[in-house]
């Protein structure tokens, strides 16, 4: 548990990177975690070709896990192509968090991934199978 709230996570939670709502933006999606009602928005700016991410902002209130996960996830997005984002494996995000996430918190950890996928695919994205073991 002190495991789960390693300094790394708490640091991202206290000082999240890329927090905010980008205006103007090219892509935008809102989604929520039904298990807790937390909501998150993701705004993206693209390069002239409309294929590569130049800037990203996430917003919304949530727990330490979801906020840290959004902070960590968005950190790696600049310069990525939309295709690369679409091909992302949710497991990689869980690995990057670097702490064991129990089944009850998987949706917290993967909310940012879900919202991001919604943004780059232009519509709600299903919870990854990893998060399906628990329901809202």
């Amino acid at each position, binding site marked *: 548990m002190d495991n789960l709230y390693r300094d790394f996570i708490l640091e991202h939670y206290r000082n999240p990177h890329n927090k905010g709502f980008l205006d103007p933006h090219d892509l935008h999606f809102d989604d*929520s975690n*039904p*298990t807790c*009602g937390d909501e998150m928005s993701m705004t993206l700016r693209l390069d002239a070709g409309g294929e590569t991410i130049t800037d990203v902002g996430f917003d919304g209130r949530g727990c330490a896990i979801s906020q840290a996960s959004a902070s960590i996830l968005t950190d790696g997005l600049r310069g990525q192509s939309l295709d690369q984002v679409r091909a992302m494996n949710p497991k990689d995000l869980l690995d990057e968090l670097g702490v064991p996430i*129990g*089944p*009850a*918190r998987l949706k917290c950890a993967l909310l940012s991934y879900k919202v991001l996928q919604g943004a780059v695919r232009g519509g709600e994205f299903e*919870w990854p199978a990893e998060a*399906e*073991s*628990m*329901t*809202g």
Partner: protein
Amino acid sequence: MTTQMTPGSGVGSRIPGAFSGTALRTDFPVFDRPTGTGKRLVYLDAAASAPKPRRVIETIADAYGHHYANVHRGIYELSEDATARFEAARATVARFVGAASPREIVFARNATEAINLVAYSWGRANLRAGDRMLTTQLEHHANIVPWQQLCREVGATLDYVSITDDGRLDPDDLRAHLANGPKLVAVAGVSNALGTINPLTEIVRLAHEAGALVLVDAAQSAPHMPTDVAALGCDFLALSGHKMLGPSGIGVLWARRELLEAMPPFMTGGSMIIKVTLDGAEWNEVPYKFEAGTPAIVEAIGLGEAINYLTDLGMDAVREHERYLFEQAWAALREIPGVRLLGPDDPAIHAGVISFVLDGIHPHDVATVFDSEGVAVRAGHHCAQPVMQRYDIPATTRASFYVYNDTDDVEALASAIRACQNLFS
């Protein structure tokens, strides 16, 4: 559903020695109990409800004792543990029926609720005044009355496929009714009153050709033979845990995911919503949309263990075991004068359920005399009054077999019949 799908298959590959019912009885604590008259319990009422193996009872006790909390949402170890076990049971059920995903498995109290769910949810959304739907004359009340109520409410017409003198669905009558374009065909895998194994593959094919969806009432088939909704191609399937060695209070509705997604909820409340305001609510994903309130958590877990017990035996072996017992019993009973046997003569389309009438002796008296011999059978209309009306009898006596039965039980049945006839002669 391999076996019952193609009646006649499997002959020649019979393996009566796959397991010994006598030996399996030691798995079931109920057989430790002497009957009131001190005789060995000969339990021939599996079709009503089945005894529970020790493994299932221990799983239930252990779940209540050491792994119990409310499921979903609980952010602590015990709740995560309970949730994992509950969802593992859903996956076990999914594999058992051949579902594409555990998300196609909705837990209900029993087969009856599963069917009512479809009638209320799918039925009220899809059946309109003037529409027709089809069931059969050999159904359990659970597969008749919900449709009567639905059709009355929406102004649709309910038709029934008639049955032959030997208890089979009349294929010509089925075709004739399908020609009227019913929206849904609701049919049992196995008749609990006659033992008939219906030709489901054929029925599904014909119904789909006629544009109808098919609901299979598998309450009496799933416990006794392989079930494979993918191979069968049906649209809905209902079963009850208590008839397949599992706990009471748990049943299953399987439905194709697109159907579940499109259906409105049935009961509403906690767990089945994503968002509630004073103005309205949004529904959760399937299957949770259909599971309002705290589910039958431990009962689902117990059903999972019952399925493990059955799949360890092998559902093909279970079917062969009961087929063997059926043949022995059918042959023995046919020898006894004054015994009228119902249902088909062909063992390929007759499950381990034998319904019979003794000349001049009321089935209630038969069951009471049997009870004094330690033989537990059911007497009555078996919740299938239209079958009784079809054969113009008030009731039958019914003996039904399961994994713990063996040829000694067949002999006990035959001798109880003789004892009864002697008493009333």
